[in-house]
């Protein structure tokens, strides 16, 4: 039996997925990327996977992806995140027409052509990078978990607005609201709505994702309030897999041969 492993080394987190022959998930795990010690973190996490699953490392074909993919020194193959996302999207939805990946650092939109090939990619621009990190910072500042943040935003009226053109200004606006003792739920909702607008901006940049056949991947897809805001604005009925944060890693694993 060949074991297929996908390792997605993102800016914020490292995700490892191991699949069996039938592409069922045997192991999935993630941890923070570890800053300057990312290579060590990858090695430790991989070893932990092997120990827990009792899998023989030599039986594994490992595909690494993500911004820090070359830190996976033991990988058999390196692929880009877009290819991994496209592969995952096809795996999750037959006839998928587009994949949107909303991660800590980057937003990617990957259209799939009729013949299954990848179409015109769109990425977030610099001023819209780090949306996930922005949300993390804001959660931290308000001492909230991601889930609490999402729940708070859902209960808000959503009347406040923040700058959605620049992440630095967005944070400044958020501080301004906090400074004025505005209700916490409204502040969180403003931030989430602003982030949703920025994500929609990437979706509108090149080829608009299909309304019905779009798969949503990435860690931010776990934020229900954010996903609702994106859906509301774009009108897209996303297909969201069970573990969207592992989507890119699963795509990489599927490409292991």
């Amino acid at each position, binding site marked *: 039996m060949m074991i297929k492993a996908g390792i997605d080394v993102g800016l914020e987190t490292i995700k490892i997925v191991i699949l069996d022959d039938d592409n069922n998930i045997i192991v999935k795990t993630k941890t923070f990327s570890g800053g300057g010690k990312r290579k060590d973190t990858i090695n430790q996490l991989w070893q932990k996977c092997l120990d827990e699953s009792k899998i023989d490392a030599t039986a594994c074909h490992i595909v690494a992806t993500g911004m820090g993919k070359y830190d996976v020194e033991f990988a058999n193959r390196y692929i880009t995140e877009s290819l991994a996302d496209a592969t995952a999207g096809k795996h999750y939805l037959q006839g998928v027409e587009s994949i949107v990946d909303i991660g800590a650092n980057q937003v990617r939109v990957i259209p799939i052509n009729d013949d299954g090939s990848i179409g015109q990619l769109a990425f977030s621009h610099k001023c819209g990078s780090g949306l996930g990190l922005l949300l993390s910072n804001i959660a931290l500042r308000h001492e909230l978990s991601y889930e609490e943040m999402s729940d708070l935003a859902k209960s808000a009226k959503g009347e*406040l*607005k923040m700058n*959605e053109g620049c992440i630095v200004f967005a944070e400044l*606006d958020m*501080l301004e609201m906090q400074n004025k003792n505005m209700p916490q739920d409204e502040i969180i909702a403003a931030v989430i709505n602003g982030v949703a*607008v920025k994500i929609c901006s990437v979706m509108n940049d090149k080829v608009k994702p299909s309304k019905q056949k779009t798969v949503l991947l990435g860690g931010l897809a776990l934020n229900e309030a954010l996903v609702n805001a994106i859906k509301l604005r774009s009108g897209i009925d996303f297909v969201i897999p069970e573990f969207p944060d592992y989507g890119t890693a699963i795509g990489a694993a599927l490409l292991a041969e």
Partner: protein
Amino acid sequence: MDRFKKILDNRHKYAEDWKKRTSGKVIGYFDTYMPEELVYAAGMLPVRVLAEHEYDDLTDHQMYGNCYCTRDMLNLFLLGRYDYVDGVVHVETCQWLFNAFQTIINAKPELFEFYFFVPDAPDLKTSKDVMRSELTVFKTRLEELTGKTIQDEDIDKAIEIYNENRRLLRRIYELRRADNPVILGSEMMDILLASQIMDKAEMNEMLKEFIPLLEDREPFADCIRLMLIGSETYDSKLEKVIESLGANVVVDEFDNGSSYIWNEVIPQKDRLMAIGLRYLGRPHSALKDNAWRRRPERIFQLYEDFQADGVIIAKQIYCHPHGTDMYAVWKLLRERDITYHTFERDTTMPYSETKLRVEGLINMIKPGISRVYGWSSDECMKEGGNQ
């Protein structure tokens, strides 16, 4: 005062109502070098496309690196806010504005469009001939659009209405020179912006009623008098922040502020030449102040005339014409020992951060002044986290 503000805040409805009332066409324009008189003489309403921020997830499709004003303009057209506009006209000025014009006509090809070349070197001997030639072509195009010849009398009437409007607005400006003005900077800006979207004849009547009332107003108490310069502005939010701190903007040198109304068309038999000369002779914007550096001296002159105590330079991020002018302006202000503060504006304005800057400037002018809430502070504080 509220009438102007109300019209400005409901400008799209104003233009739609005007259309219904007159069955005339509405022409959107992007820069104040557009010879409005000719559009008005053709029986149409020239409406300045004013940037107004709404959540924007559309313009990345066509734009990158633009100032947020021009992004907002395209966004507003894509959102359908300007659906009542029958055409758009742009004149040779800033390239970002040109890009707004270009992307809008690409997105809305059904619109009438015209590009008018206003010389970047406005003071060359032949510049007036270029203006006249361009006005002739423009006149023909407008006549084709309306199916009606623009008569000399139409132009004369338009010139008179526009001149009267400029005179009336200048009268209000002159009131600001008083030691204790009767009008706030934010009010002046609202009136000026309203004038860029209103039927000038109607506005003139309103101004004639308003000015006597204004003159009878109780003057505002002593305050720090500030001058506001920089990139074009589309609202009076910054003025309100300033007022909330007990200061008042007594004069501006904005392209769509004082420069918009400062000179009149001097009538002559060659009507198009007369209009052309007005635009070549107006106080020039940062981009058109090209061959000579006249802006800094004009800024100083206004500063002196209106007895300002300090200057705020508010530049839009990515506004390159003002990015090229700041050196000369800073140099002059420093040489003449004028207190100033420069900051970059964006599409939204965080109040606390902006207030901190203005407070800093006020303290530079009058050390030791603590925060004094001014006339519009309550309104300002109510308006939420950012604008």
